[in-house]
């Protein structure tokens, strides 16, 4: 059945989960870099999530999400066999895949899953993929094995040093750029501060740097401009012009500010949800 959750896996219990969803019409057209908009239930809001993987033969897509507020909490309540009410996609411009060299793909947090799909696209196009992934500690690291399946090099950093390099992904990136002249592109997907730091790291090297932006979206088809970002002094819509842009051109400060626009209401919605759940359980 369309939109049915075929497989659910808690990657980090209580925090991050992976869903494999039956969506043949999306799987048939999705490319690395594509995203979907979903609505969990009636009364629900539309939220964007990157497609972490697809299987065209089985007609499935994979999404990975961090439980952060009400909508992702509602998503987390669904189990295998349940269906997602509305699932729309694939959306956005697919990743532009350049060829003939080394591509360093940097991922942080849940962004590693999205980065993984882009890295796979680069690998399939014949590029040498170096994956650099980071998390606060070993337990919060995602998709290391999935990346190892095709990336010849997977470099890991943790903030606390519990696994791999102790420090930030940008330390590993800088070291790598100093050693290697064949890097044709750096891709970064993760929290805004991480993508901003990656762009700052690559700038002195003059390496093309692509970031996948996670702005607030409503329709996801270019109708409203909620997701607008400033890139090279021009206003662009992340949903139709992106979500990937030149990291050296993005106004990250503005993006950070815009992501905070609904914070108090997001908290109110989550609290309201928790209160209602509390009533139910009584």
């Amino acid at each position, binding site marked *: 059945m369309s939109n049915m959750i075929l497989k659910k896996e808690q990657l980090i219990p209580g925090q991050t989960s992976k869903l494999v969803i039956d969506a043949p019409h999306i799987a048939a057209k999705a490319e690395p870099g594509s995203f979907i908009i979903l609505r969990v239930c009636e009364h629900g809001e539309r939220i964007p999530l990157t497609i972490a993987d697809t299987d065209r033969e089985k007609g499935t897509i994979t999404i990975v999400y961090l439980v952060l507020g009400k909508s992702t909490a509602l998503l987390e309540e669904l189990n295998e066999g349940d269906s997602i009410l509305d699932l*729309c996609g694939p959306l956005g411009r697919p990743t532009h895949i350049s060829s003939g060299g080394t591509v360093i793909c940097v991922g942080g947090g849940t962004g590693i899953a999205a980065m993984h799909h882009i890295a796979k696209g680069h690998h399939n196009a014949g590029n040498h993929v170096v994956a650099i992934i980071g998390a606060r500690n070993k337990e919060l690291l995602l998709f290391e094995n999935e990346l190892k399946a095709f990336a010849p090099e997977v470099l890991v950093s943790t903030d606390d040093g519990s696994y791999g390099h102790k420090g930030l992904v940008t330390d590993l990136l800088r070291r790598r750029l100093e050693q290697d002249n064949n890097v044709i592109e750096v891709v970064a997907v993760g929290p805004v501060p991480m993508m901003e730091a990656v762009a700052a790291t690559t700038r002195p090297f003059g390496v093309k740097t692509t970031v996948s932006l996670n702005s607030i979206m*409503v329709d996801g088809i270019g109708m409203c401009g909620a997701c607008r970002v400033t890139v090279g002094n021009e206003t662009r819509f992340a949903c139709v012009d992106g979500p990937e842009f030149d990291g050296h051109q993005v106004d990250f400060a503005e993006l950070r500010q815009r992501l*905070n*626009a609904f914070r108090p*209401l997001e908290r109110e919605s989550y609290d309201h949800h928790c209160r209602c759940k509390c009533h139910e359980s009584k």
Partner: protein
Amino acid sequence: MKASKKPVLPRVPMPNQPPAERVRNFDEVALGYTPEMARQEAGRCLQCKKPRCVKGCPVEVPIPQFIAALAQGDVEHAYRIIKTTNSLPAVCGRVCPQESQCEGACILQAKGQPVAIGRLERFVADEYMHRDACGLITGKPECPYIDPEKKVACIGSGPASLTAAGYLAAHGCKVTVFEALHELGGVLVYGIPEFRLPKEKIVAKEVNALRELQVEFVRNRVGGKTFSISDLFAQGYKAVFIGVGAGLPRFLGVPGENLNGVFSANEYLTRVNLGRAYSFPEYDTPIIRGRRVTVFGGGNVAMDAARTAMRLGAESVHIVYRRTQAEMPARHEEVEHAIEEGVQVAELCGPLEFRAGENGSLAAVVLQKMELGEPDESGRRRPVAVQGATVELPTDLAVIAVGTRSNPVLLENEPELKLTGRGYVSVDEETGETSMPGVYAGGDIVTGAATVILAMGAGRRAAKHIARSLGCAVED
């Protein structure tokens, strides 16, 4: 025609919710005629031999005939007459700019009091709504035979597509409508607010009537992304109608436009109408409830945004317009309603800058004072900046309603589709056919942002040619 000797009675007024009350809810403002009012208003029609009103209607509803039936108290007959050319009368009776169409052409207009054709159409549609569905859409009590081989795809579910789908199904075609959003109706659900066009009571009912004609609706499918036009032909569709509208918002291009608190009207209205954000947190889509709201633009969308802001509890709402209130393109009725509800008009002002407060969010808009100069190519006097005259308006929420452009999502993925210089789909004016054989288009994606009724007229014209090309019997 000679003026009637009888004095012309004034038109029967439409009962409305009182402003002080309605500004606190999202219920429909206009309450509709009672049967008695409708019959009285219908009696004002002079039953012209050569009715000008019909020529003023883009879908050529036989207006004197339906009004005559209504005057005799035969609502069902009146409904069937309307339905011969108009598939969404409950919508049209509410949102058409009748003053510049049918009513503008009415002979009684000379006396300033044309027949209230829109209100009568609305009355007939609402009265008939609860009756059988096939009659509802076709005006005929029995459903036609639908030929499963005559498959037609409509992309988009706004007024143009719904009209095309209704016409095609009534003529025996098997229609599938593909909609990108999760709810059907296009601008009827995301754009026009509940207080002008109820979603459950009216739009959903008109859509459901189409289901009775075996029209299939598939939501969450984006033309150009989830499927291409060639995919549709590969799946056995014999013809395609493109009715995807002109949904890409224009911005002003002035500093500070990306500050938090600045919204396109599309975003603001989509959150409230489609997301039901007025019921947050019962519904999950949030909306910022501005205290001091400024809306840029003078069209119906600007009025909708301003009136929505009032209902969301704003202390003050200003509409900023470059010309004067008299030149506003919005319907007079909408401007009047907005002002009755407390919306203020800042005439002869243009946008200069959005300013942030200490928290980085919008705190004020800076406006350039204008005066009217020489007439421009549209014949209207051009607004000219008064040097050095600026004014700052404290604002914590701004809505930009200065129009839309064609949405590139479908078009840039269909390079064979020939476009006009302005980026809209180029069609044969007579048939609505595009440069791709068997692919038709109509509504805002062809004309740029216009009205519901013009989109419906285009949908109907194209559907007639599609039906004929598929071998259906079509009246001329």
